[in-house]
């Protein structure tokens, strides 16, 4: 059950402003509202992991997943983001939409495990992580690993489908059950206008990680 209709949720998420000047190095593109609303709606209706839960959003950007989670009834949402400009847009979105239970912290997600207090703080973690480039290959799995340490229930994340086997193997080592809950195809370049001419759709998996028996 969800407290809001899928169509309504998508309508609201279309009102979420994107990055003003996306920073390519940080892989700043928003999760398209159609995709964000579908996956979040499924998290709630299939697994009940949002309503009444404390939800964390790693690399929250301008707030698409935080705002979507709150609209689906999260008790509270906290977003974590390394870029202050993105968080200014995040705060603008939250204020503009008059949503009371959404908060954010300016920090490096990869430093959170060192902070000591965020372990198991959340019921659910959602993240659309940077996929990593030549220079920071594997950052998406570092986001997931951090998410697993911070959640007591489940972690949801997007990954390139080409990494499916690798992820399966990796999470097994952590005693985490992972399964692909949706196969998506989308264009991550749309916010980079100068890229438009050569942009292509890529295959992306939406994963659910059950962390209730984690060993990490």
């Amino acid at each position: 059950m969800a407290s809001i209709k899928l169509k309504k949720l998508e309508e609201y998420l279309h009102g979420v402003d994107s990055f003003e000047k996306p920073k390519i190095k940080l892989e700043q593109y928003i999760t398209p509202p159609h995709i964000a609303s579908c996956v979040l709606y499924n998290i709630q209706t299939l697994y009940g992991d949002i309503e009444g839960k404390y939800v964390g959003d790693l690399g929250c950007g301008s707030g698409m997943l935080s705002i979507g989670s709150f609209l689906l009834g999260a008790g509270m949402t906290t977003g974590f983001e390394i870029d202050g400009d993105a968080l200014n847009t995040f705060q603008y979105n939250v204020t503009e939409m008059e949503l009371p239970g959404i908060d954010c912290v300016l920090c490096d997600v990869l430093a959170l495990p060192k902070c000591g207090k965020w372990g198991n703080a959340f019921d659910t973690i959602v993240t659309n992580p940077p996929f990593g480039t030549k220079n920071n290959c594997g950052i998406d799995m570092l986001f997931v690993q951090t998410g697993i340490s911070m959640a007591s229930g489940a972690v949801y994340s997007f990954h390139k489908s080409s990494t499916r086997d690798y992820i399966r193997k990796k999470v097994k080592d952590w005693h985490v059950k992972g399964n692909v809950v949706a196969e998506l195809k989308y264009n991550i370049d749309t916010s980079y206008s100068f890229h438009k001419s050569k942009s292509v759709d890529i295959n992306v998996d939406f994963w659910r990680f059950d962390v209730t028996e984690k060993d990490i």
Partner: protein
Amino acid sequence: MRLSTYNFLTSKAIKGVKVGFPLKLTIAKKDVVESEFNATFIERLLPRLDWPAIRLAAEIADLADDIPSEQPANIAENEELLKKLHHLLLEIDVLEGQLECPETGRVFPITDGIPNMLLNEDEV
């Protein structure tokens, strides 16, 4: 910054800092954001709260009368206290202020409601 978030923030990522908690909070400007009370959600948060830290936050937010200095038993049955916790943790929004590391004095500013916990390379 909500005080529920404050409950989890530390400066432990700084090189040499042992605990880095609770951070010394200063509030220069705050707002109250009304939100729906959900008793079950506050109960969910309870085991994750550091009582001395939230009591400290209550003092700084001028709500010391609402929050007992020792965590009472059976809070779940005490709806009045749950409501006060809801107000303290989810409705007080710190817009301007700072967090200070109790061990090094390093200051983390809170600007436009956003605590800046970023560290310089030479600090980690």
